[in-house]
């Protein structure tokens, strides 16, 4: 083929706001705690939330104080519990990432910068509520009491992995906690969660389902199915778009033509709220509101959780190739762990020393959990789930053709 000169093109392609070598200069937020009212969740119509969709629900101000109609009035104990889970998740993640770096784990994904999301939101729910997460809400499991050892066994894929090495690390499944198996295809859980919620209502049970989707994955058809079915059937579901600005290397500017997510719920008839995803109190309060609404039979809520993916997408990713390395430090929403810590200190219920003690205690917890887990088998040498598990639990009972294939495989 002969080389041709490219003609002029009018095609318009978005870009990220800042690229490596540039300085990330986020505008500071125009939104303040107290800006927005808190409508009656059981009666609220979508239209009444347009200010909430265009604004931002905040509770924790820059002065580390909690103010406004959305202040959930949590006790110091509850706040300390939240802080502890967030610290636990951060330390756990850091340790796992180090293990990955030293070849002891095949792969890992951190929740860094987003620890608040699943933890505050799960704490705002009832025990019987269903959790239908992505890979960036493992923290919900701590709230629901999952044993860290079993989480690590899953990541190692050893013989104690409850899902038997069938999925990559961080694809947790935790039935006892009503935490439904994480699936790699992004977005699918969002629409499925609506079905889980419809079933609860069909059975007339006081159960709510919460689910999350990324800014990136909101471009999948499942996002549209979820909002639409939730609106049409008034499902008791809490639909969260976690807008952490990035989908691997692709900025959220490629995920929507107008840069906003929350307001997308409005034309489906869903009250829609944007919330500061690094503000534990705001996130707790909005989730509690959505749960009240769902439980009242009025239907679903659409929430944009505004945050920033502070770390790499996963252990396979190198964000310095596509964004300024220090961008996460410039995020107007700050760091969720520090903000809750500072609030507790501000109200006189916490101190730097207690924080240090907490971190040390959890560090020990993670160390001993890892030791125990690895005692059941490490990545390099096992023991792993038996080869038969390739063929089991595919069906309720193994049909003859899988039995034959199993036999063939064992001979091979």
């Amino acid at each position, binding site marked *: 083929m002969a080389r041709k000169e490219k003609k002029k093109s009018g095609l318009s392609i978005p870009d990220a706001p800042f690229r490596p070598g540039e300085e990330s200069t986020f505008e500071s937020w125009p939104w303040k705690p107290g800006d927005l009212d808190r409508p009656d969740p059981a009666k609220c119509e979508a239209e009444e939330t347009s200010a909430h969709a265009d604004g931002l629900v905040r509770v924790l101000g820059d002065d580390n104080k909690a103010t406004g109609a959305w202040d959930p009035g949590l006790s110091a104990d509850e706040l300390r519990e939240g802080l502890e889970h967030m610290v636990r998740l951060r330390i756990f993640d850091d340790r796992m990432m180090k293990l990955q770096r030293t070849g002891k784990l095949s792969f890992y994904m951190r929740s860094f910068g987003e620890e608040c999301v699943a933890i505050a939101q799960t704490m705002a729910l009832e025990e019987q509520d*269903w959790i*239908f997460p992505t890979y960036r809400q493992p923290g919900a499991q701590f709230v629901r009491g999952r044993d860290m050892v079993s989480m690590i066994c899953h990541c190692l894929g050893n013989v104690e*992995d*409850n*899902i*038997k090495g*069938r*999925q990559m690390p961080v*694809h947790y*499944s*935790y*039935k006892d906690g009503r935490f*439904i*198996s994480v*699936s790699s*295809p992004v977005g*699918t859980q969002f*629409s*499925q*969660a*609506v*079905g*889980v*919620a*419809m*079933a*609860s209502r*069909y*059975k007339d049970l006081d159960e709510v*389902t919460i689910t999350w989707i990324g800014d990136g994955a909101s471009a999948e*058809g*499942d996002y*549209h*199915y*979820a909002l*639409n*079915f939730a609106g*049409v059937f008034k499902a008791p579901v809490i639909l969260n778009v976690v807008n952490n600005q990035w989908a691997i290397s692709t900025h959220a500017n490629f995920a929507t033509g107008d840069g906003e997510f929350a307001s997308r719920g409005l034309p489906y008839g869903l009250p829609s709220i944007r919330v500061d995803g690094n503000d534990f109190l705001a996130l707790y309060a909005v989730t509690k509101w959505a749960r009240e609404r769902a439980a009242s039979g009025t239907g679903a809520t659409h929430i944009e959780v505004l945050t920033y993916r502070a770390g790499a997408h996963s252990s396979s990713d190198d964000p310095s190739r596509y964004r300024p390395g220090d961008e996460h430090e410039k995020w107007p929403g700050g760091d969720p762990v520090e903000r809750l810590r500072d609030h507790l200190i501000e109200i006189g219920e916490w101190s730097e020393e207690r924080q240090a003690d907490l971190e040390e205690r959890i560090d020990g917890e993670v160390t001993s959990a890892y030791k125990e887990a690895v005692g059941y088998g490490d990545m390099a040498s096992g023991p792993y789930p038996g080869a038969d598990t390739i063929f*089991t*639990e*595919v*069906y*309720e009972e193994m*049909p*003859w*053709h*899988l039995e034959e294939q199993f036999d063939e495989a064992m001979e091979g």
Partner: protein
Amino acid sequence: MPNMNMIQSLNSALDIVLDGDDDVIVFGQDVGYFGGVFRTTDGLQAKHGSHRVFDTPLSEGGILATAFGMGINGLRPVVEIQFADYIFPAYDQIVNELAKIRHRSGGEFWSPVTVRTPAGGGIRGGHHHSQSPESQFTHTPGLKVVYCSTPYNAKGLLISAVESNDPVIFFEPKRCYRGPFYGDPHNVPTWDGHPEAEVPESHYTVPLGEARLAMEGDECTVIAWGAMVHVCEQAIRDSGVSCDLIDLQSLVPWDRDSVVASIEKTGRCVIVHEAPKTSGFGAEMAASVQERCFYHLETPYGGSPGGTPRSPTPLNGITCRDPLA
């Protein structure tokens, strides 16, 4: 015993499972108030209530996704995809999600959804109302695949599918809803008086995984499913060859023992289906048959059953796959 056409027997199956189990819930496009474009769910909403039998948005992906979630949360959804050609927007939810949830969660979660869908040609539907996409599902571990062919097996298989704790893709040969199809488009018989249209009113099952011997003979084994069962029946009669005609009924898992026994007896085998030949389920059958019957096969049975007219559907011609020819 009452005589039912396939629409009636499927309707009866749904009525029975709705009656018998509160966890059964039936939905899809136009299945509620109207009773389905093929009338399969006629009267069910009026009888069982609109919370149990209802219409949905026009979204196959959304239907399968919500069914998946309901299944996780203890229900037993039976959904309709209006034509099998329109199952593909839900393909990801079926092959990546529904099929894999039990395995991927280490058995913690599963979702016993039944997906009913009219398939196959012969109704002048052009290439988007005629496909028979069974082999696009038989490859995916975790799914059971069923293809009914008569009013009797339609009802019994559908009840088994709904009662199964595995997800089932349930193909209905729309050409045979109101009568068997013997291959001649100008000959339009009904199910009236057909022995396979004698259908008990009450609950019964045709087990998944078992084939039906539709004709008995000793010179050749013919394997077919869906509408092709009737086409083969006619063709076998016309040919004068003495054949076992095996109506496979279940494609995954299929009935190894019946197939092997028949081929050991006849020494010959022909496989007939509607879908395109390349990578059709006939290929799997042909490969499997010779894999397990090699030492029992005699000479190849030459050619396809006579008298089979070409399907009017482009690229959905009748396929004969002869593992020995």
